[in-house]
């Protein structure tokens, strides 16, 4: 490439490839160890359980809609081995506490004030729920909250509860 103009396409391609492209956590990958991310709050013991990890925020309207549905799922399926864990990405405690007081979920939630876990997982939307099997492997990723897909999520959870570890 002798002429500077000829290297322009190569430079443009390099710029495009240099864009940050952190890959998001997908089905089939193990979920990261939650203890390593300095989450605020008490994490439940969920080793060996089917787990739904829900990333939410107090400013997110679909998250508000999801809480009663996930509370009902937790109440119904906890005796069979389901654990739901809410992880808030709120940086401050006040809106987080107010949200929990208002919606009173039946499942435990913790807060990720440094947003370290959510960055590590690279959550694609708010809310996003990761369904883990008893080995801690992500089996499906549910972007957003859609009331009409709840029966499918429930059926998927029931299938995982039937599986042997």
């Amino acid at each position: 490439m002798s002429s500077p103009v000829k290297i322009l396409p190569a430079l443009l391609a390099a710029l495009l490839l240099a864009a940050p492209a952190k890959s998001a956590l997908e089905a089939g990958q193990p979920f990261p160890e939650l203890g390593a991310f300095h989450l605020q709050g008490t994490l439940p013991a969920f080793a060996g359980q089917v787990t739904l990890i829900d990333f939410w925020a107090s400013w997110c309207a679909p998250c508000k809609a999801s809480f009663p549905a996930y509370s009902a799922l937790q109440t119904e399926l906890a005796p069979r081995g389901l654990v739901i864990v809410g992880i808030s990405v709120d940086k401050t405690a006040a809106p987080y506490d107010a949200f929990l007081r208002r919606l009173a979920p039946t499942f435990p939630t913790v807060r990720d004030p440094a947003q370290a876990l959510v960055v590590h997982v690279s959550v694609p939307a708010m809310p996003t729920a990761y369904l883990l099997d008893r080995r801690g492997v992500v089996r499906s990723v549910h972007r957003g909250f859609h009331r009409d897909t709840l029966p499918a999520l429930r059926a998927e959870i029931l299938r995982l509860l039937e599986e042997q570890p």
Partner: protein
Amino acid sequence: MKPRHLLGALLVALAVLGAGCTTVRPWERATLADYTMRPDRDPLHTAMSEHIYFSREASSGGRGVGGSGCGCN
């Protein structure tokens, strides 16, 4: 313009344009959802804007009410 100068100018333009680009990740949208980001947070300002709008457009009802602009509704 010599090709070398053209390339330099393009690179500078790319750098300037690139500096203005950012991606708001899903968990960073709290700022966008903040009350102060609402364009209608000040009722007086909204009323003034609407008055200017329907005065300029010679329409009745401003932006919030359907009408044909005849002033008869």
